[in-house]
């Protein structure tokens, strides 16, 4: 397998399993806990986040490389990225509403929630900090998005079971959900080392 492709698979798998943003790095916890009550909602939210992450990276990476770096304005990274992402999400929503109403009906409602999602800003900043090139950044965003989707869907299944459990009164609601998230995160520890062994790096 060529070195380049192996590297890309490594980045993708790291995003999905090993460095899962929700369960290992605590980014994007709000939608993870807020919109994971049912599996179909979780899928919708996960797909919307993946989509926005790809768009955000496609927009912020060129801006950083071709505008901020040549002008030596790297310190404006935070302020520029958040504005670009916020504007982009609004733009995507308007475009979807106008041209692809079917997609807007299923993803549109999740978009306002994603504007200030820390996972989206986090992946845009991390791609720059990790020194990825454009292709690697896009693959990384895809991996992180899919990892988010996976965590959401798994956790929605877990939550469906919790709702029917007679938890102690003071644990009902938020606390038992967090304890369940802890166990799901523990399960994700099992993936540590999987990628290295799989590709024999």
């Amino acid at each position, binding site marked *: 397998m060529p070195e380049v492709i192996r590297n890309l698979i490594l980045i993708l798998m790291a995003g999905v399993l090993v460095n899962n943003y929700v369960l290992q790095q*605590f980014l994007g916890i*709000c939608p993870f806990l*807020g919109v994971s009550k049912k599996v*179909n909602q979780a899928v919708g939210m996960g797909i919307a986040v993946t989509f926005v992450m790809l768009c955000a990276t496609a927009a912020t990476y060129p801006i950083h490389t071709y505008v901020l770096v040549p002008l030596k304005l790297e310190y404006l990274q935070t302020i520029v990225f958040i504005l670009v992402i916020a504007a982009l999400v609004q733009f995507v929503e308007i475009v979807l509403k106008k041209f692809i109403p079917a997609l807007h009906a299923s993803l549109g409602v999740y978009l306002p*929630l994603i*504007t200030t999602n820390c996972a989206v800003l986090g992946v845009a900043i991390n791609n720059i900090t990790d020194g990825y090139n454009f292709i690697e950044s896009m693959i990384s965003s895809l991996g992180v998005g899919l990892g988010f989707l996976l965590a959401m869907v798994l956790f929605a299944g877990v939550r469906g079971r919790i709702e029917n459990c007679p938890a102690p009164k003071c644990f009902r609601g938020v606390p038992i959900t*967090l304890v369940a998230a802890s166990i799901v995160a523990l399960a994700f*520890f099992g993936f540590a080392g999987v990628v290295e062994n799989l590709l024999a790096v």
Partner: protein
Amino acid sequence: MKNNKLAIVLRGIIAENPVLMLVLGTCPTLATTTSVESAVWMGIAATIVLICSNAAISALRNVIPEVVRIPCYIVVIATFVTAVQMILQAFLPSIYDMLGVYLALIVVNCIILGRAEMFARKNTVVDSILDGVGMGVGFILALFIISVIREVIGAGCFWGIEIPVISDFRIPVLTQAPGGFLVYGIIIAVMNKLTEKKGGVKRKDFSCEGCPSAHMCNKTSCSEMTELAVEAKTSSDNNAREEGEANA
């Protein structure tokens, strides 16, 4: 009048503690509480941004147009975050490296945007600063409690200094991701138990209270909104099916 001001500060620390009562700002809470040092610095950085942005947004509350207020707030907050980042990078580089990406992510911290939306845009500058102080101290306090539990039991240390006996019996998983969720969950449960005795407190859920996107969706909770989405989707599917049948 003086009591009123004091009440604004105290409310943020206990009754409306952003982390323990409103369940806001979960990301930095879980991510930076692996050690007491990083948790306290995170709390201080967020508090400075919160106080400054509350003051600025309150001062500008008659200038900012209602329709584009969220982008305006984001610019104000991002400016202060950048300033804090640059100050830390210049004077405390070790702290800057320790907090890493989470420092930049103060921009999207629900607590800060939430207070701008809920409090600063409706109140005077002084009240907004006091609200920022109260909420900030509440945030630091909550981070401190969680990080003490995680660092002392998980790593056998306090502020990086090893504690003799406890360090022989540490539970390392508490300093990792699962431990964060677990400790946070248990602390909220304990808070529920404590407030329950005092006459009960409203049941906590992941509500839109303080959610910066709340004005865009106008629903009472995220789950309600997504239920609407599902309904809309099924009804559009049904419509499509009916149309298909009609065509057939």
